[in-house]
């Protein structure tokens, strides 16, 4: 793990639907594995913010940002030439040897999927968005089937799992979506989220229940096997039940 943050220049910021793709010069930084994350900090922020690596074009790091608060807005407002402090790669990425991987993304949860898709050779992907405007970001993920609210991404996933139960969902999205994915497949891998102050195990701020105990997500995750996060997952519901259950995932 790198423990030195590096000041890098912004190359460009691009609108991708409702999100912003922040493209930063790569400098000496290793892009790491898909699902790993970086802590990003810009002028005006005391704390850095965790961001998944979205794209890894040569010489570049790309981050897809949903501007939902002060930190993400500040990062999304950066312009070419601005500096951003980058620390990483941090945490654990998705498994790259999963059987028949299927990428599942909800809203800004698609952030790690473009890099993951490239790395895995463009496996099938299911993406859910809350509006057409948000769904523009699906262009970043090859081979993606897209659903829009009120359709939920777990509906096509349930169908897919009926057809090939051995497929492994690699999912990132809002908590209710992750929980619904877990109900469908206890062997799924979920990229979880939590507010993080440091990203490298120093602050104990990012704990979530893992294996039934509060553990630091930045060290244990952010990708975690579904069965470690949710007690009643997998076979608790048949795919068919899951599709119609009221608590099934929303495409946020």
């Amino acid at each position, binding site marked *: *793990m*790198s*423990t*030195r*943050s*590096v*000041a*890098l220049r912004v190359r460009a910021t691009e609108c991708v639907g409702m999100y912003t793709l922040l493209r930063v010069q790569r*400098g*000496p*930084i*290793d892009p790491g594995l898909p699902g790993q994350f970086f*802590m990003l*900090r*810009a*002028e005006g*922020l*005391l*704390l*850095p913010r965790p961001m998944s690596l979205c794209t890894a074009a040569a010489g570049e790091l790309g981050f897809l940002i949903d501007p939902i*608060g*002060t*930190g993400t807005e500040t990062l999304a407002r950066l312009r070419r030439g*601005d*500096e*951003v*402090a980058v*620390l990483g790669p941090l945490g654990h990425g998705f498994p790259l040897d999963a059987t028949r991987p299927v990428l599942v993304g909800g809203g800004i949860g698609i952030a790690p999927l473009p890099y993951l898709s490239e790395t895995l050779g463009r496996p099938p992907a299911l993406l859910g968005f809350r509006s057409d405007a948000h769904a523009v970001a699906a262009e970043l993920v090859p081979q993606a089937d897209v659903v829009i609210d009120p359709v939920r991404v777990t509906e096509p996933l349930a169908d897919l799992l009926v057809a090939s139960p051995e497929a492994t969902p690699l999912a990132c999205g809002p908590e209710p979506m992750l929980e619904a994915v877990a109900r469908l497949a206890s062997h799924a891998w979920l990229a979880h989220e*939590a*507010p*993080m*102050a*440091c990203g*490298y*195990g*120093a*602050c*104990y*701020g*990012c*704990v*979530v229940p893992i294996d039934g*105990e*509060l553990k630091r997500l930045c*060290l244990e995750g952010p990708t975690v096997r579904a069965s470690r996060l949710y007690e009643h997952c997998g076979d608790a519901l048949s795919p068919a039940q899951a599709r119609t259950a009221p608590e099934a995932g929303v495409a946020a």
Partner: protein
Amino acid sequence: MTRILNASGCLDALAVPEVARSLDVFVTKTVTPLPRAGNDPVRIAEADVGMLNSIGLANPGIDAFVRDHLPRIEALGVVLWVSVGGFSAEGFAHCCAILDAHASIEAIELNVSCPNVTAPADEASSIVAAARAATSKPLYAKLSPALPDITAVARAAEHAGADGLSLTNTLRGLVLDRGTLEPILATATGGLSGPALRPVALAAVYACAQASDLPIVGMGGVETGEHALALVAAGASDVALGTVLFADPAAAERVRVELDASARRRGFASTDDAFRRAHGLASPRPNAPVGPQEEHGLLPIMATEPVSL
């Protein structure tokens, strides 16, 4: 020589040994008699001039600490202080007695001031006295800045046998979600650290340095060598880094270099000069003209040259 420590609770040496080794002293997160899961998440939030935390002293408890963690920390070869907390004087004494047997521990910090658990501030002196009876190791009393008269508590700790003061812990603060106006932390209020604490910690160090002869570890919002030098001038012998480590894990090295440069720029032979100057104790030697200050760019706490480890 001013030493650079981490502030308790702001670094896990086992997660990042190289960061722990960049410090002159590694201080553990507070250890309590029994294990504590800590508070429910959300536990951290950025405030506009600081950060809030409500970790709630999550720790494995003294027995697991000594059994599982201590040997691994010892293997890192760092100078080690252990921070101790408790909910009674006996609790503190119990931990101190256990730690007393471990030669690898240079000193014990008594956290009598965590704002996220019931604060036993009034009992500072009985806690120090009980800890004193339980160990011969140097004892640093870590005080809260939220006291009507911190010097009275500092003197009480001194009389009860403390060997030093750690100043300061966090203030109690609150941040509401900008959209919903609900408190962001699950506990609503939490401990405020970072820049907002800086002038408060500086005042506490200054006042306690005049009221007591104990060495002081100064902390609170230190981000640069200038901030560290101000604490030294106010009366700190050593300086601890907390919140800044979250944004800049390499802060210790940087602050050490900046601190030396800041002192040199003012013509101080040693940091004692800074102390004498701030306290008007003696006219310091004719000081070189103070040139332009360290210019911090957009990102004051970043390495200027991209470097990776």
